[in-house]
């Protein structure tokens, strides 16, 4: 029972098939996964292996066609209605006619927070993502990395314990990315959220995660789940330690295995 309570995402034999004009596309099949409270889970795999689809299924943006998916012990739909998660899309998806602070206020307005509460939360989350001072700017006045941080702040502004992030730093250069990764880890440690994070980068996955889910395409499935042995406290140079490299190696092998299976 106690086990069950701490389960944030639980997939049992999950499958998802899209009906398209060219016939059915199996995006996910036989996915089994447990995400526990406080986990940082990365999803890694080649393009088209269903990472986005899995995240969208958790978010109730797609419906599973097979198996069972529970979020916070309820259906994804109920979880969405309970505003259980914040979703960070690959593109920042800020509304261009709103200033940064108004963009962060968007979910708060919709969820009916008082003006005072909104103000407090905007200030807090903007500080959390290091954007203090840019409240009154419009999105186009910010760099890509800053826009992405604003979209993370927006997902953090309300009380969702689960953060779903779909390649949030995919479009950014490596220096900015390293910096944001560090900030994300700090934020995760401070807020004790559960994070599901999609990435194409092996070092990023290993650096961030407590659990790495390796996936492979056609049909999209999980080929390996790696529990990280790295400590929660992670300076950037942990990436040169043998332990780190060993995990990265295993991820790489998992990815390669997924491919050879295919050929």
């Amino acid at each position, binding site marked *: 029972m106690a086990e069950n309570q701490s389960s944030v995402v639980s997939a049992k034999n999950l499958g998802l098939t899209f009906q398209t004009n060219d016939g059915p596309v199996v995006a996910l099949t036989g996915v089994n996964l447990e995400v526990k409270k406080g986990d940082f889970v990365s999803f890694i795999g080649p393009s088209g292996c269903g990472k986005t689809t899995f995240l969208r299924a958790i978010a109730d*943006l797609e419906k599973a066609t097979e198996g069972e998916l529970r979020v916070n012990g309820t259906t994804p739909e109920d979880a969405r209605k309970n505003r259980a998660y914040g979703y960070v899309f690959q593109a920042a998806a800020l509304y261009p006619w709103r200033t940064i602070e108004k963009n962060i206020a968007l979910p708060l307005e*919709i969820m009916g927070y008082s003006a005072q509460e909104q103000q407090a939360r905007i200030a807090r989350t903007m500080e959390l993502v290091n954007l203090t001072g840019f409240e009154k700017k419009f999105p186009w006045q910010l760099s890509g990395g800053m826009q992405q941080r604003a979209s993370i702040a927006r997902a953090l502004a309300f009380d969702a314990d689960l953060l779903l992030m779909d390649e949030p730093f995919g479009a950014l250069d490596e220096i900015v990315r390293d910096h944001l990764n560090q900030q994300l880890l700090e934020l995760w440690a401070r807020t004790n959220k559960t994070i599901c994070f999609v990435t194409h980068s092996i070092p990023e996955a290993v650096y961030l995660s407590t659990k790495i889910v390796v996936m492979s395409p056609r049909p999209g499935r999980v080929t390996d789940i790696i529990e990280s042995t790295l400590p929660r406290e992670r300076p950037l140079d942990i990436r040169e330690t043998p332990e780190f490299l060993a995990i990265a190696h295993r991820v790489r092998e998992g990815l390669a295995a997924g491919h050879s299976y295919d050929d």
Partner: protein
Amino acid sequence: MMTETLRTRVWPVVAVLIVIIALWYVAALFMNRSVAVNEAELKGENLTSSELWMKSFTLKKPLLPTPDQIGVEIWKTTAEMKVTSKRSLVYHAWVTLSATLLGFAIGTATGILLAVGIVHNKAMDKSLMPWVIASQTIPILAVAPMLIVVLNAIGISGLLPKALISTYLSFFPVVVGMVKGLRSPEVIQLDLMHTYNANKTQIFWKLRFPASVPFLFASLKVGVAISLIGAIVGELPTGAVAGLGARLLSGSYYGQTIQIWSALFVSAFLAGALVFAVGATERVVNRLMGVKPEARV
């Protein structure tokens, strides 16, 4: 800055204007010459060619009045006349303008409401859109007299029938533009709303409507100009009482070409002013909505 705008924006317009005016005088000379010759023969005058030129430019009922004749007529019927006078162009312009603005307001409101319905309701989308399009295939010249006569018969006359013709014309670009605008949010922007479990009203006010604003203004610019045309057309079958349309009509009854051209110029000026007003509003709204400067029009 000033000289720059002068050079790049004002100059080309002025140059074209000068060419048009020059061509105009040439055309007026050719068209009015025979009239002048006839008139001189009738009076038994013997004119030198330069006198004939002058006469061609100063006829009371020329085929084509010269720009200066029109200018003088407009000056006389606006600045030098009380606005309450039945001959004042300001009075007539106001009559037309009030119908235009009322019709435009009703048309815009109708257009937006229809677009909201079409975007939110599949049945309305299927059933309404063909009718909206069909409505514009009927020539306004056929609809206008019918509408005026029918409304007159049930006791509605004056401003409203004319305004309704403006409405009939102006709701169309608003519907089309707003349907497109309300559907313009990207999937990702809508998905975001979905993750917040936002309801339809919230999605409308916080996403669909703001996203549609650029489309709305594009439609309004077209709508306001054709509203004016609607109001003028609406005045033609009313028995020429008041308004720019009435001036056009009475001018053509009595061969008062100068009067016709003056009314034409005033209506063109009104149309320009209306479009400019919409454009100015758009610029203010754009600034409030943080539109990137180079993306502003």
